């Protein structure tokens, strides 16, 4: 076995990435990274933050008001009625769950694929996941109507002496989404522990005792011991490996809510992969929106570079095209199946009363991301920002189109209806954005928004072989022999010098 001082040739993947473009720019030192990120949690609250926090709290109070009015009066205050029994609520639920998926994709799947550029954005993307799942859970919770007996969905003994129906995809959803939220939370927290240790030590150094105590409590006594890192890295790897099938299962289960039913337009086997692709598509767009603002406001252009944005735009282009392909496949299958109800459902979707929604969806999701074939547009921050918002509008409409257009034409024409949302439907939608941004602003204010320890780990000087031989270009050098690293008093010394003597 080669000793670690022997530099593996280019076969060592970790080493090879040093030759690639740097993942962060500006020649940052380890301390620069700490400073750039940690200072935003330590400084006085900026006035602009307070302003936007007040705006977000306004949105949150709209949510509170909408929920209070809803619980007092019942779900009749929403615009849904037979045959459109699911409308804004489930649209919003699927929309928010989908947004969450990009965070897990970045934190788990890209980690498993050794995509080291993820380190700059994973913390914020995971936070986005948590907050999006929190927003999503509101809708099915209150859609049940009598929210005070919502625990009937859980396998807890209750006064009816009955159990939930374990064969129902709706119950699978309860398990899938709540477990997804839980696992995302602990994954995020595990990633935070070293950075909270950093904040603790910084606070202790400047004498902010209360802050150091709070951070000390949450950092669990983290010291950066290599014996700890060993288990920590394994735990992180296992959590990533668990989250990957979990995130794929969550949106698959969400799609089963539709696909397992017999409603034309819902009853299709393409739904699970199509929903997962759509989720990643919308989630990356949301990460893009948030990151473009955050990197500018917090001066993180060197950590979250245009290269990161370009890579995310490529994901948006690919998943958007997959989603668009799924839209077209659905039409083909409807025609090919020969089932008149299916054919009607899809003709009605594109040319019926909700055609406007359908074409918004097609334009935003299939057509607009195609501009990212051009490298100049992929690297343009302005176009990325506009597109990210367009994509999220499109993905919200996708869920609306799937849910409402499939339901509003029942098998029985006398039941046909046209769903119109009420002010309380909009109140819940706007309010959920209020909740999301309230939580996200709190995150930006109090928690390191970039994974400090992980970013340090991808800096070129984090590799111990960086110091062997000539800086950075180690190939063929560094056979445990270093003239470059000064000894205690600046005298060059050899690592294995002592071994010869003793």
């Amino acid at each position: 076995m080669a000793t670690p001082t022997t530099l593996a040739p280019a076969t060592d993947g970790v080493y090879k990435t040093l030759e690639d473009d740097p993942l962060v720019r500006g020649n940052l030192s380890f301390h620069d990274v700490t400073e750039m990120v940690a200072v935003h949690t330590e400084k006085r609250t900026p006035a602009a933050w307070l302003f936007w926090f007040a705006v977000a709290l306004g949105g949150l109070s709209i949510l509170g008001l909408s929920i209070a009015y809803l619980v007092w009066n019942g779900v009749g205050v929403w615009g849904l009625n037979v045959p459109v029994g699911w409308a804004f609520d489930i649209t919003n639920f699927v929309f928010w769950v989908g947004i969450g998926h990009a965070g897990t994709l970045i934190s788990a799947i890209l980690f498993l694929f050794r995509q080291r550029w993820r380190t700059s954005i994973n913390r914020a993307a995971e936070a986005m996941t948590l907050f999006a799942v929190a927003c999503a859970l509101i809708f099915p919770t209150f859609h049940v109507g009598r929210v005070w007996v919502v625990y009937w969905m859980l396998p807890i003994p209750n006064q009816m002496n009955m159990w939930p129906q374990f064969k129902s995809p709706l119950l699978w959803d309860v398990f899938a989404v709540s477990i997804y939220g839980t696992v995302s939370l602990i994954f995020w927290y595990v990633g935070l522990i070293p950075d909270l240790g950093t904040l603790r030590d910084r606070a202790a150094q400047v004498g902010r005792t209360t802050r150091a105590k709070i951070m000390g409590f949450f950092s669990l006594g983290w010291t950066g011991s290599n014996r700890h890192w060993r288990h920590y890295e394994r735990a992180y790897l296992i959590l990533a490996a668990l989250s990957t099938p979990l995130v794929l299962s969550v949106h698959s289960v969400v799609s089963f809510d539709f696909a397992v039913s017999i409603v034309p337009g819902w009853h299709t086997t393409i739904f699970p992969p199509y929903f997962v692709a759509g989720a990643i598509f919308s989630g990356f767009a949301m990460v893009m929106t948030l990151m473009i603002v955050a990197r500018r406001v917090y001066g993180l252009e060197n950590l979250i570079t245009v290269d990161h944005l370009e890579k995310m735009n490529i994901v948006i282009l690919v998943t958007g095209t997959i989603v668009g392909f799924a839209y077209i496949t659905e039409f083909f299958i409807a025609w090919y199946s020969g089932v008149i109800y299916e054919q009607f459902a899809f003709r009605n979707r594109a040319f019926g009363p909700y055609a406007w929604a359908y074409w918004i969806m097609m334009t935003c999701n299939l057509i607009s991301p195609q501009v990212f074939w051009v490298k100049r547009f992929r690297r343009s921050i302005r176009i990325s920002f506009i597109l990210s918002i367009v994509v999220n509008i499109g993905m919200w409409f996708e869920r609306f189109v799937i849910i409402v257009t499939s339901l509003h034409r029942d098998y029985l024409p006398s039941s046909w209806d046209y769903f119109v949302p009420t002010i309380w439907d909009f109140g819940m939608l706007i309010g959920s954005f209020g909740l999301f941004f309230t939580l996200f602003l709190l995150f930006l204010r109090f928690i390191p928004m970039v994974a400090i320890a992980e970013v340090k780990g991808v800096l070129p000087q984090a590799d111990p072989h960086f110091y062997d031989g000539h800086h950075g270009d180690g190939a063929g050098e560094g056979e445990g022999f270093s003239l470059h690293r000064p000894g205690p008093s600046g005298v060059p010394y050899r690592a294995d010098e002592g071994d010869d003597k003793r």
Partner: protein
Amino acid sequence: MLNALRSEMAARADQHVGLLAEFSDPGALLHAVEALRKRGYSRLDTFSPFPIHGMDRAMGLGPSLLGYLVFGGGATGALLGFLLQWWTSHVDYPINISNKPLFAWEPSIPIIFELTVLFSALTAVGGMLALNGLPKPYNPLFFSDRFARATDDGFFLHVQGRDPHFDRDTTADDLFAEGALAVEYVDHEGAHPVGRNGGEGASTPEPAAPPHTTGKI
């Protein structure tokens, strides 16, 4: 596995009393660990703001045992998911619908899967904390002011006082010989600077930081 766990537990008591040496960069730290192990030291630990590639091998640490724990947790979750659905629909509240079987495994898969993931994930985090002995609010290393940089840009090597080779003065000399910038003796009373050749740390002028200590390329 049990023996490994036992030795893990035993290694934990009083492990932080000893010499704490600061090094300039991850490369220096890695080489120092290798050199000290060649000199016969075994109870070493390093502290760094991020995991250093190759350090486990340099310290002679095998793979983490966490995977076995997580497997156990996941198996428990899967079994529980199965029992929950089987017992509720087959034993506790059987309902005969069109004479279909009371329990079928196909629709039980999603919940079995979800509970497997939940229990595995909780075991992964709980197991990681248990193996690391966290939370650990008191640690004598925190007496050292320098040590605050272990979570920023400091690289530290710790030699336990229980190491068979440990001797406060000669070990400090060994650390300096391997390129330590500063050495402190840390015990439950506090951190005491140690100088070269057994002298007081305070009298030793701090060596000038090498040009790349800052990490600038």
